[in-house]
């Protein structure tokens, strides 16, 4: 379809972007790679009057080694995330998941930050951010603030980023000593996740010392499977123990029903996929 008309501002710095958003009021949208926003505009689901393009803001295009964490710029493309040496070395879960996002054309255009701020409940990147307790660096007229992943995803397609703010970067802890895996369940290679499970575990001497599990598309936002994490932690790293822990994966979730799966099937999938994701993360 054809979008309504809008004004276009190309920002070259974060400050320029914030200024443009502030000037436009509530009616502006940040444009990254456009892989989520443009379909929204073309389907006339939203008609912002101004688009502020941040895809070439240098600061947002960097991946920086901060010692114990990586700072990944919001405008880094999914393809770059997939192949960046720092990401593959220190946060392999992010690189592995990026490779499962949509198709090559979309991965070359779409951005990590865009995927997070779009906050589609079936998006893969938000779940990885959530499982790793990432921090989101957000810039606004009053300066910068850091939002933890637990507070960043608010509701369907809604984040803590205000209308006059822009997501600058995401801080992800390095994962030395952890095993991880993202299990994406979808019908065609380029489709959204029906359910996804991100798992990260630290195994010490046959025991799961720490476990993190987050679910895609099992509610309005990516959610942590706290009861699975609790059941795994301190237990043996065996297939049987993992399968038993995964039985509670759907507890406390509120999945929707759509043309691909109803809520009951999604709950079933969450259990099966959690078992598989944790088993792979534990290297079994």
């Amino acid at each position, binding site marked *: *379809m*054809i979008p*309504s*008309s809008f004004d276009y501002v190309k920002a070259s710095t974060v400050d320029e972007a914030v200024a443009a958003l502030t000037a436009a009021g509530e009616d502006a949208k940040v444009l990254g790679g456009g892989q989520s926003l443009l379909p929204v505009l073309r*389907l*006339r689901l939203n008609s912002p009057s101004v688009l502020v393009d941040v895809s070439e803001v240098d600061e947002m295009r960097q991946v920086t080694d901060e010692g114990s964490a990586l700072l990944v710029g919001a405008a880094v493309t999914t393809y770059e995330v997939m192949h960046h040496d720092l990401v593959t070395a220190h946060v392999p879960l992010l690189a592995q998941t990026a490779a499962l996002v949509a*198709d090559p054309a979309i991965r070359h255009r779409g951005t990590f930050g865009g995927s997070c701020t779009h906050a589609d409940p079936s998006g893969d990147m938000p779940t990885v951010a959530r499982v790793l307790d990432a921090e989101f660096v957000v810039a606004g007229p009053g300066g910068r603030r850091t939002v933890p992943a637990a507070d960043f995803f608010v509701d369907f397609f809604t984040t803590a980023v205000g209308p006059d703010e822009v997501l600058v970067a995401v801080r992800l802890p390095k994962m030395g000593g952890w095993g991880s895996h993202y299990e994406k*369940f979808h*019908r*065609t*290679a*380029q*489709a*959204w996740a*029906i359910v996804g499970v991100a798992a990260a575990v630290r195994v010490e001497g046959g025991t799961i010392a720490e476990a993190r599990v987050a679910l895609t598309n099992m509610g309005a936002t990516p959610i942590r499977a706290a009861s699975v994490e609790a059941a795994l932690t301190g237990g043996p790293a065996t297939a049987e123990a993992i399968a038993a822990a995964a039985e509670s994966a759907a507890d406390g979730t509120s999945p929707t029903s*759509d*043309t*691909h*799966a*109803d809520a009951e*099937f999604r709950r*079933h*999938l969450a259990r*099966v*996929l959690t078992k598989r994701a944790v088993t792979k993360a534990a290297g079994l």
Partner: protein
Amino acid sequence: MTETVMRTDGAAIGRADRRKEDARLLTGRTNWTDNIQLPGTLHMATLRSSMAHAKILRIDTSAALALEGVLHVYTGRDFPELAGSTCVWPVTDDIRMSHYPAICTDEVKYAGDVVAVVIANDRSVAADALDLIDVDYEHLPAVVDMEEALKPGAPLVHADMGTNECYVARMPCGDYEAVKARADVVVKRRFINQRLIPNPMEPRSVVAAPMGMSDEITLWSATQIPHVLRVLLALLTGIPENNIRVVAPDVGGGFGAKLQIYREEVLALVLAKRLGKPVKWTETRSEHMVATHHGRDQIQDIELAVTKDGTILGMKVDLLADMGAYLQIITPGTPLLGMFMYSGIYKMEALDFTCTGVYTTKTPTDAYRGAGRPEATYAIERIVDEAAAELGMEPMEFRRKNWITHEEFPYTQIAGLTYDTGNYEAATARAIELFGYDELRAEQKARRESGDPVQLGIGISTFTEMCGLAPSRTLGALKYVAGGWEHCTIRALPTGKIELVTGTSPHGQGHETAWSQIASDIIGVPVEDIEVVHGDTGRAPYGMDTYGSRSLAVGGQAIKLAGERLVEKARLIAAHQLEANPDDIEFTAGTYSVKGDPEKSTTIQAVAFEAFTAHNLPDGMEPTLSGESTVDPLDFSYPHGTHLAAMEVDTETGKVTLRKYVAVDDCGVQINPMIVEGQVHGGLAQGIAQAMYEGALYDNDGNLLTGSMGDYLLPSAADLPSFVTDRTVTPSTTHPLGTKGIGEAGAIASTPAIINGVVDALRPLGVTDVFMPASPQNVWRAIQNAQAGGAR
């Protein structure tokens, strides 16, 4: 002066030439309809009903008209009598025919029905104006489910008909009840052949333009049927046929969806004439999903009567076929195109066929790749697997016991068709060899015994189909209001170049290459010197267009005859030039020579120049050199093949994975094996997509739930394995080139192969059917229900 290029390359038929047309098609640097930009073009946009069924109480167009750039807004009141489409196949004497308004006047009958049309000087403005049109609707109950629609007291799609039943067509062959009484086992199944949305790469597009001072209006359309469309546009609009020129420029796929006359074509033509300016419309993909006709959508109640030893006695077929809200070009006939094919490749004594067409408040259905034959093939190939299972027979053994053996051809089957040739044994033997059938059966056994969560199934489809639509008398007997002939004119131009004018209308099939190869062999001119002219009623005035795997099977015959006629006329001129008796002239690879005196020779290009100058022709001979033929085929053609699918089914998640696919097809003589290969691959992808991915879903209010490609899934190359393909060659004896047709075979054969494989994997769990598409949820539910003791 005549340019004489001799052929030195041997026979062109059978050669895997690269396609001449691909460079421009693949780069898009060509005249797709939407690429046509005429000065002063006005842009049309359509406002579509958001409700499935409603009365239109009031339409306020004032705000839209006030928008700068908007010139006109039309509603049904402006064209109260104008039809937007029509049906040319009233399949029974008492069929209830619908009127399909170009713009709805007082009622909408499906979500997507047109209620207003905007004309603006810019496409974006036209789109903006749609948002400003205010329509008051009074909700009427939707009619979504076919069985509910037929119940007394059901809400009516067309109130004046008093029923939602469009027609009942019956074809009893033999005495089914008598053979059923002799049967040991009667296998009954209900199959759902779900609704599909055809999705060619290029959406529909139309440009209509008055041509200067003459009365002619040229209409370019992304259509499969420029010739048929011209006739129908004249009939619906009253504009004289000889004032309408229809051009199908390069067209990016059709699959039946562009075998149609659409209201946007009618409106563009009428408005271009009224406004005196070019009018253009191109659908968006979202629009396409509701506004372009859908395919399939049948409930199939199937019975197979068999004896204990595995002999098929007879078959009963009872169909409900969803017409949607209106009848379009061949809506009611589409399910009946499969009527003759329900017995497939098997011998049987009776076939009792009934089809009930049902109106619903949904997008109209019509032809989609295979049109009726995929449904028939699905039913027979699924039910023979079920019968084999009930009898405890290996499914391929059951087939062997019942199929027509190669010694039995020509064979008149139960529905009355005479299959001219075939060799099911040979195709099956080759497929089994390529597949590793025994090894996969062994792996299946091992997985079953170990309780592997991923089970393996083997899906079989030993299919045949009918191509080459169609002998005109047969079409007449079936109440179709047109013929099935095809035309070709081959003109030798003064410079020795060849213009081959065909009535077929390619939209991706590679006719330019394949037709050149045929003509090259017959008239001895190199392929690159032959230009194929098509898809333009101005330049190619006679034709019946492209659908139903007819272009080669029927059009190919016309090329052969036209070429032979050209060669014969040229022989007379050559004899005159060489001062020899025509009977003493030999013609080889473009050269005429005198028998026993090869020094005395001339070329067909030189003859063409002589025919142009006409300085020295035989007495009484008319100048110019061409050959012309309009061929009505003697019979249909019957491609066949054996397809095998290895399916992995994850019993924990229901996820189905196609691991290996073998397709051995017999399409007779192949003109260009590479093009055949492409047709097989594309057909397989579409048939597999029906089995695994696609399905149009509506809610109870008649809203399309799968209106975007996020919900309506199409596979990409990443979702499909590398196909293993081969061909056996059993030439047709009723088609002069020995060809049969290959455009739809893959789509017809593969759907049951996939589902048979999924069911085969799960049969030990008690599963006897899986709803299409075999989505994870559908498969998982089938397993759950089987384990709970119910049928799926």
